[in-house]
């Protein structure tokens, strides 16, 4: 049983990959909730959907590689371009002329590129724990693990599991380590069980492919900042100050560069949307009301 059920649920075939979406009809504007990686799918927003759908039209979809979407393998099918094309196609096929994108973690990079290429369609951005490269303070645990990405390690442990071979061969170990590290809040057993369950609906191979693809053809730091500076849409950034996936300074810098609003969640980790949904939901609702509903 869910707190609310979609008014429409359907799949698109986009260049041979099934993309599954759901629509919760209501008055606009439309909020498109973008999942961040095949490490999860649209259910990551389960604590947002019932509340937001009472106020706005909400569209969700499963990203390629997880949920009810297809499971394509290969680096070339998981690029940022493919993910941006997926989300734009979902907008098109749901008859959504314009939408506020609500993005978590890596999806913010896609949202950024979508907004910059389609300023007529993307009218706002809610960036939750944004994972945009170069912004904020360096994160040594990612950099060190990434440096050994292709190496075959003896018995990788902790962040060393962020490694192509470890993710493929010890998928669950990486997933459990990762979400345990993210769920810094006490009493997170349900969020942990959910997150691990959704992650295990995909495969280590797909997750490793998508991680590699994310970095392909990455813009330089200056290019990223130029894209951000070129945005002319309202932005709300929500970021937990104990986030170990995307350091809170990323969110701060994104808010500063866009002149957006920043909601810093004291004591929250990377999954504030699951562990502290009420303030997250209220911040999103207030933002959308202020920008698009009030006269």
């Amino acid at each position: 049983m869910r707190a609310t059920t979609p008014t429409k649920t359907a799949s698109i075939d986009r260049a041979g990959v099934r993309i599954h979406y759901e629509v919760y009809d209501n008055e606009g504007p439309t909020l498109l909730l973008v999942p961040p990686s095949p490490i999860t799918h649209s259910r990551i927003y389960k604590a947002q959907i019932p509340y937001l759908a009472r106020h706005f039209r909400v569209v969700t979809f499963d990203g390629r590689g997880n949920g009810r979407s297809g499971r394509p393998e290969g680096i070339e099918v998981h690029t940022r371009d493919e993910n941006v094309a997926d989300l734009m196609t979902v907008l098109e096929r749901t008859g959504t002329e314009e939408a506020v994108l609500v993005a978590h973690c890596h999806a913010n990079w896609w949202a950024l590129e979508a907004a910059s290429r389609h300023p007529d369609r993307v009218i706002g951005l809610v960036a939750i724990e944004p994972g945009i490269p170069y912004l904020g303070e360096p994160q040594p645990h990612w950099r060190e693990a990434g440096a050994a990405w292709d190496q075959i390690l003896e018995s990788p442990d902790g962040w060393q599991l962020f490694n192509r071979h470890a993710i493929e061969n010890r998928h669950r170990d990486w997933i459990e380590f990762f979400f345990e590290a993210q769920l810094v809040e006490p009493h997170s057993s349900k969020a942990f069980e959910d997150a691990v369950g959704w992650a295990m609906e995909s495969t280590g191979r797909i997750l490793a492919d998508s991680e590699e693809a994310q970095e392909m053809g990455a813009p330089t730091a200056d290019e990223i900042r130029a894209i951000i500076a070129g945005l002319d849409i309202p932005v709300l950034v929500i970021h937990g100050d104990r986030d170990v996936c995307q350091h809170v300074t990323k969110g701060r810098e994104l808010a500063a560069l866009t002149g957006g609003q920043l909601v810093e969640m004291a004591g929250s980790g990377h999954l504030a949307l699951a562990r502290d949904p009420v303030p997250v939901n209220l911040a999103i609702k207030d933002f959308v009301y202020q920008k698009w509903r009030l006269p």
Partner: protein
Amino acid sequence: MRAAYPEVEGVVERDGVKLSYQVFGRGDRTILLLPTWTIIHSRFWKMQVPYLSRHYRVVTYDGPGNGGSDRVTDPDRYTFDAYAQDAVEVLDACGIERVVTVGLSLGAGYAARLARNAPDRVTGIVMVGPSLPLTPSSPEREATFQKFTAPYPEDVDGWGKYNLAYWYDDYQDFTRFFFEQCFNEPHSTKPIEDAVGWAADTGPEVLEAEASRPEPSEPWTEALESLSCPVLVIHGTRDQISPYERGVEAARLTRGTLMTMTGSGHIPNTRDPVRVNLAIRRFVESVAS
């Protein structure tokens, strides 16, 4: 920060024992949330107070032995009739004539004694997981009750910790074990932590006194059959403290309504508060004021 703060906080003294009470909300009708086993205090109603006090006046108080009330060690202060008298005293202090009472576990017994002794004060009773000896305990539990005052074995485990000497030796470990049995639903770490914390506000001296109380002179079956007010019984099918059959029996004896909480443990008001709160509200609305 709490979701709701009391309008009134006070202390009432009965025969030299101070009892701490709180009044929330301002409705015309009043719900009295009774104490339970004094191993925890009135904060165990934390998931009920904010919702119910939006619709009704809600009175809570700490029974003797925990919370803001005196740590009495006289067993006579813990009889079911003494609890009932405490409740009357609190209502008098608040100037409240009639209430719907809600009692959890042993609190269902306090509610029944209150309604028997002061029938004009009680318009309805909600019993949540009533823990009254209406049907036999499991053989395992029965065996441990028999050994309550015996020395406990070296490798004490499980219900073996329900033992007076063990309470004195490792009270916190007993409380953790006990609340793990109460909250057997998945993802109950927060309720367990809360309850173990409230249990730490009292100790084995108080619980020993309460365990030594005399039983009421009127048998429970007769007391329940004699109740004249409407009764709602809410009972979890996986209650490991007081078997579900006891809730069935309590509803039958009181000619009350039974609400079955499938999969719930002993304290559904904490683990499934929305359904319990809505049921309490529906019941209050159905009871003539």
